């Protein structure tokens, strides 16, 4: 009897979490998936109408803007974070005495809420009181910087704030990767007469492949999820200039009473994230099993 209990106890302990995840994650995904096949407006309706929401969604100008913005934002965000992160990690790895002092400074934005980051950058980039006015006061009268109020350039201010928040984190990932590389490799290359720059380009950076991959996956999934920062920084504006899929979903579902389309956009977001994250997790779990 006791043995029987011991056999089942682990499963009983795991059951509540498993049940919660099954219902609240996978059940909800199926539910939202079904809603995307209905003509739900303010409230869910369950009358099946096929895939017609999908072409409708992709025909919407509003959605095209959101996807286009995500492409601009995502590419620049990933690229700049990676460049800054790699640069800072390599520089910090040069036996910098102040490393213990500098590293936390590079990384603290990651502890902040995107709403806080958005608030700080919103007013810092505001032409009336922020950067533009500072430059004018310092005597650079012709300095002009109103991107946050400019339909064409507002999306780049979202990139600026997001890079500020996340690049330190990428630095930490690369630094961990660098610290894992055997110093002997470096010495051998130096004895062979290779210059510092060449050693990095030819040997060290290629060895950081796993860190590049992790950074890419994490940043890409953060970019697709990006919501809070846009809300706090520009609230999707001016006009719809900084609308992203996440803000699109929210406004169509809860403000414009187009729940069917909102659900459809959520499914598209899920597909985007899963197509990046599933291969990654699969390969990670497999390599773990092998080792």
């Amino acid at each position: 009897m006791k043995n029987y209990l011991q056999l089942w106890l682990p499963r009983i302990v795991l059951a509540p979490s498993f049940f919660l995840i099954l219902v609240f994650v996978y059940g909800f995904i199926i539910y939202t998936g079904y809603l995307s096949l209905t003509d739900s407006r303010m409230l869910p309706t369950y009358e099946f109408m096929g895939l017609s929401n999908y072409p409708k969604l992709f025909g919407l100008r509003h959605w095209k803007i959101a996807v286009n913005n995500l492409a601009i934002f995502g590419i620049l965000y990933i690229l700049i974070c990676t460049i800054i992160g790699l640069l800072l990690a390599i520089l910090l790895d040069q036996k910098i005495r102040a490393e213990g002092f500098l590293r936390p400074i590079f990384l603290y934005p990651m502890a902040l809420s995107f709403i806080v980051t958005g608030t700080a950058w919103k007013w810092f980039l505001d032409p009336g009181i922020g950067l533009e006015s500072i430059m004018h006061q310092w005597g650079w009268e012709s300095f002009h910087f109103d991107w946050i109020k400019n339909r064409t350039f507002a999306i780049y201010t979202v990139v600026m704030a997001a890079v500020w928040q996340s690049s330190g984190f990428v630095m930490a990932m690369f630094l961990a990767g660098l610290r894992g590389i055997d110093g002997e490799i470096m010495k051998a290359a130096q004895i062979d007469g290779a210059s510092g720059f060449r050693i990095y380009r030819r040997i060290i950076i290629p060895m950081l492949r796993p860190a590049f991959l992790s950074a890419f996956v994490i940043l890409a999934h953060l970019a697709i999820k990006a919501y809070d920062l846009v809300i706090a920084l520009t609230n999707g504006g001016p006009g719809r200039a900084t609308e992203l899929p996440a803000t699109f979903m929210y406004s169509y579902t809860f403000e414009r009473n187009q729940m069917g389309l909102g659900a459809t956009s959520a499914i598209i977001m899920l597909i985007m994230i899963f197509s990046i994250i599933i291969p990654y997790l699969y390969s990670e779990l497999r390599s773990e099993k092998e080792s």
Partner: protein
Amino acid sequence: MISNSISGNSGANIKASRIFIYLILIIFAIYYLLPLYVMLVNSLKPLEEIRGGGMLNLPIVWSLDSWRSAWSSAQIGVDPSGLRPYFWNSISMVVPAVLLSTILGSLNGYVLTKWQFKGHGIVFGLLLLSCFIPFQIVLIPMAKLLGVFGLAGTTAGLVLVHLVYGVGFTTLFFRNYYSAFPTEIIKAAQIDGAGFFRIFWRILLPSSGPIIVVTVIWQFTNIWNDFLFGASFADFDSIPMTVALNNLVNSSTGVKEYNVHFAGAILAALPTLVVYIVSGRYFVRGLMAGAVKG
């Protein structure tokens, strides 16, 4: 470890390149600190000083009025309540959510490493994948479900939400930590007649200190900083700090009190910032564990 690698050979060259490296690092340090500095100095200025330009200048007249206003009297939504009630809303949401998700995560991690059963890999895979879903996918059914159970707009409802979408991460943390724990010790304890909970309580838990700290910090930071769930599911009695801050900053009525906004932003950032300063090492470890598995 890699040392003196970018620099060339001659002494002068090395010195120049060291100075260059430090210069770049310092410029970036300034870049990262700038927004915090801007928030801090401008929260201490009267409003006219900010309007007059010079956002980077130190205050001429130092004043704590905007802090007082942000905390207890600023207009948020319909009430001139300041951020104080929302601060407590956040606390009473974060504490139970963090505790519950950490406890569940530690037990799950224990089962998934030391009491593996057929299909444990699939269970873990499903938990792991749940960490990365875009939460937009659950907003509609969650709103409906909270309504059905009478939890709409309550702190209890938000605790449930954060528990559900945090347990994947906490399980991941504990699983990775416990998988390095020698299974032979568990086996030996089993032979001595120790049961499931006894082994957990007496053997694993006493050595779980670091991972508990990492998990608590990770969960605390994430839940405190959450905006989407708060904005979607909270009512006055449960609106968290982040949502209140956004309401404060983006309320369209009246003059824009930048100094109050900055003070409010720092108030909203303070708990996680303090945690970061006190235990930065663990915070980084949590970040890395969330990114690359340990």
